[in-house]
């Protein structure tokens, strides 16, 4: 993907566009050839309008004034994107921002679109809308490369499927005659993993209790905004509590308040009978909170440090990493090798830097590290994001196993199948509040999706009940 977009040079092999062999030395070349990329993480300036964002860097194409506006309107109408050129990007939702990204690419004359995990941040209804847009593009003769690890989506939108595993093409499939199961087997080379948990292991011993947690932030313009309000939740030993919600509705802040990186404005956090509301982060982690952060590069690893130093990170005061005030580098190294073996981290050794591993392997290292300290509570934010299907199944297994031994898990994920499959209890977060709860045994992703957009509150019933 990076190679197609000119961000990296291939060692060998060729790329042909419309039968013509090409080579790119930078993204500019790729754009010139009509290749456009929509990144998983949006690259938009929040305080600019849509028009300004689209024009930025492409000022020479249609100017920056009415010409550009006309062109944007034209593209937007042609493909049914519904873009308002004068809206501020910061006021737009995730789905709208994604459409802006697509428009940005089309504006630059792209005929081939690469979309990298475009649905990761969308609720099911938005996914359907995106797919409708993609079909429009297709109908206009554009080529779309859709990269996703969600098999159902690939099957429903694609005309042709190529499966890549560990850097090589392992097969192609025709979506009309392939099932998700067959596709998954191609992807992992084995059975389809499923996040479903069979038997319940929930006990009635509360492990984490949060009462009336509130957090406000002051915006640059001086207005005070509730980020978290009236959060009440209890997680018992052996229970997985899943929180569904469109990203940016307070999940990040909730996690950071629980781990001690943000000081809440009110509320009580109790871990295993102890009030930890005022306790600093390190003490909380020592008390048994494991943490799989949502942004592993920012919060989970030191990219330039070797794996064994990353194994120490977050647990520097605990065995086997240190004895008293001194580090025990030898023991930490030995234990890193154990984690690499047990958690299937693909690496030639423990002296390589974290940056040289793939995202999935970094994640496995983090999971292994957090599980190695027998946590009482695991905060898992998007534990399988950016992780290949094989590793995903393994991480699910590990969470399930720890849950059986009495671990309490707070699971936050944008992958609704993962949430529904792993959780014992589901809550929905919307604008900093827990607005709805649901039984994962009966709820459907679509239903959950509507609650995530604030359309439904209270206890969510299963569709059968509703139909009656």
């Amino acid at each position, binding site marked *: 993907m990076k190679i197609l977009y000119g961000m990296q040079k291939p060692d060998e092999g060729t790329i042909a566009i419309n039968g013509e062999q090409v080579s790119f030395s930078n993204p500019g070349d790729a754009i010139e050839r009509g290749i456009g990329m929509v990144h998983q993480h949006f690259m938009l300036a929040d305080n600019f309008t849509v028009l300004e964002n689209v024009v930025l860097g492409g000022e020479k194409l249609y100017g920056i004034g009415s010409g550009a506006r006309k062109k944007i309107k034209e593209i937007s109408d042609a493909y049914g994107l519904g873009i308002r050129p004068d809206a501020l990007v910061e006021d737009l939702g995730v789905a709208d921002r994604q459409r802006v990204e697509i428009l940005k690419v089309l504006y630059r004359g792209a005929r081939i679109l690469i979309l990298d995990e475009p649905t990761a941040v969308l609720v099911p209804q938005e996914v359907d809308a995106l797919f409708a847009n993609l079909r429009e593009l297709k109908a206009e003769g554009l080529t779309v490369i859709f990269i996703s690890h969600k098999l159902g989506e690939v099957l429903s939108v694609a005309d042709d499927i190529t499966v890549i595993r560990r850097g090589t093409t392992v097969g192609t499939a025709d979506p009309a005659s392939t099932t998700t199961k067959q596709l998954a087997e191609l992807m992992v080379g084995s059975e389809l993993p499923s996040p479903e948990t069979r038997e319940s292991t929930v006990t009635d011993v509360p492990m984490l209790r949060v009462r009336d947690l509130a957090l406000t932030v002051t915006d640059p313009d001086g207005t005070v905004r509730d980020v978290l309000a009236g959060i009440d939740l209890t997680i018992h030993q052996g229970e997985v509590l899943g929180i569904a919600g469109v990203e940016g509705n307070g999940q990040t802040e909730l996690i950071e308040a629980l781990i001690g990186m943000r000081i809440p404005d009110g509320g009580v956090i109790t871990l295993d009978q102890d009030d930890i509301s005022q306790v600093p982060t390190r003490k909380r982690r020592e008390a048994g909170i494991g943490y799989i952060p949502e942004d592993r590069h920012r919060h989970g690893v030191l990219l330039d440090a070797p794996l064994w130093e990353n194994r120490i990170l977050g647990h520097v005061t605990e065995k086997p990493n240190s004895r008293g005030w*001194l580090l025990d580098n030898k023991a930490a190294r030995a234990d890193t090798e154990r984690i690499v073996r047990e958690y299937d981290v693909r690496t030639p050794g423990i*002296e390589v830097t974290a940056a040289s591993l793939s995202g999935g392997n970094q994640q496995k290292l983090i999971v292994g590290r957090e599980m190695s300290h027998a946590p009482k509570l695991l905060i898992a934010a998007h534990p399988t994001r950016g992780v290949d299907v094989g590793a995903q199944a393994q991480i699910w297994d590990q969470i399930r196993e720890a849950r059986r031994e009495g671990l309490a898990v707070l699971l936050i994920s944008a992958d609704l199948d993962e949430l529904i499959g792993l959780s014992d209890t589901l809550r929905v977060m919307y604008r900093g509040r827990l607005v709805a709860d649901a039984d994962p045994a009966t709820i459907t992703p679509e239903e959950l999706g509507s609650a995530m957009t604030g359309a439904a509150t209270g206890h969510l019933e299963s569709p059968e009940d509703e139909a009656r």
Partner: protein
Amino acid sequence: MKKFDKDRLILGFAGPVLALVVALALTTVVLLASGRNPFEPYRIMFESASYVDVQVLIVNQAGTYYLAALAVAVGFRMNLFNIGVDGQYRLAAMMAALVGASVSLPGPLHIALIVIVAMLVGAFWAGIAGFLKTTRGVSEVVSTIMLNSIATALVAWLILPKNFGEQPAGSNNLTTGEIAESGWFPGLPMGDQAGEIYGFTFVAAGCGLLYWFVLNHTRFGFDLRATGASESAAQASGVDAKKMILTSMLISGAVAGLAGMPTLLGDTHTYSLDFPTGIGFTGITIALLGRNNPLGIAFSALLIAFLDKSSASLDQYGYEKEIATIMQGLIVISVVVSYELVRRYGIRRQQQKVGEELAAGHAIKTEKEAAL
């Protein structure tokens, strides 16, 4: 695994070597452009460095530089740029000299008192910047630069005869008064002509050892490095970032305070207007060149001290000794550029190698694979 370590070693040397070669080449260009013999100055410098007395000067100078560079390096490892080492060092040396001259104590105690005062003053001065950063978010770069100027003014004021200074008879110089002999740090005599190596130079070497040990083998050192590598990750791992900033500024300042000690305790025994200045800035160059590594800093300190001391003889042969200054400047520029180049190359290379090794099936055997 061995292979990676060897790679890292080679890459570790590649940076400084590349920088020095480029700096040397550029200096030669400068010499050519100004119509000088481009090789003669180097010969003169090397010849001068072959005398024992010059060598002693170099080693003594290197000791001072080493401490200043360690002070800078402590900050660098934390992603803090303590430009104020110079001010911390001068203020500390002066206060220590004042205290040292005004008391009489038995030998070791006297020395210990002077050293402790110097460390406390240095830490205090750097601590101001640390305090401002943690409470008000003031960039330590700005505040330490300004504190340098304030230190200059403060020292000039304190040393006035009407305050704490003295004016030796028949001289325009101002001093803090001479420290009694009990407060002199014994040196290592190198022969009649050569003078002696300051005893404090060995303390400096000890500081380097301590720096290495604390950074690599203590929890505190790990927290410090983690914060320097990624503040957000360190915070998530439980490091109190503010406390860490303040602590490392205090340590940096305390070490900066030590930088004046070799000269004060081993040579001048007083702080006067002609006490060496600019040590802190040279320390930045050396810390950069030595990549914050205690051994690297030692070599860099020796190199810069060599340039300083051996260039003195250039004047006698009709060359300007500023040639060495030009060279130092060029070293700084090429160091920054070449380290970044080598770093990027290193990352790319390692990613490539890891990919290759994995593709070739050289991964550590995991249990999952063993089970298959």
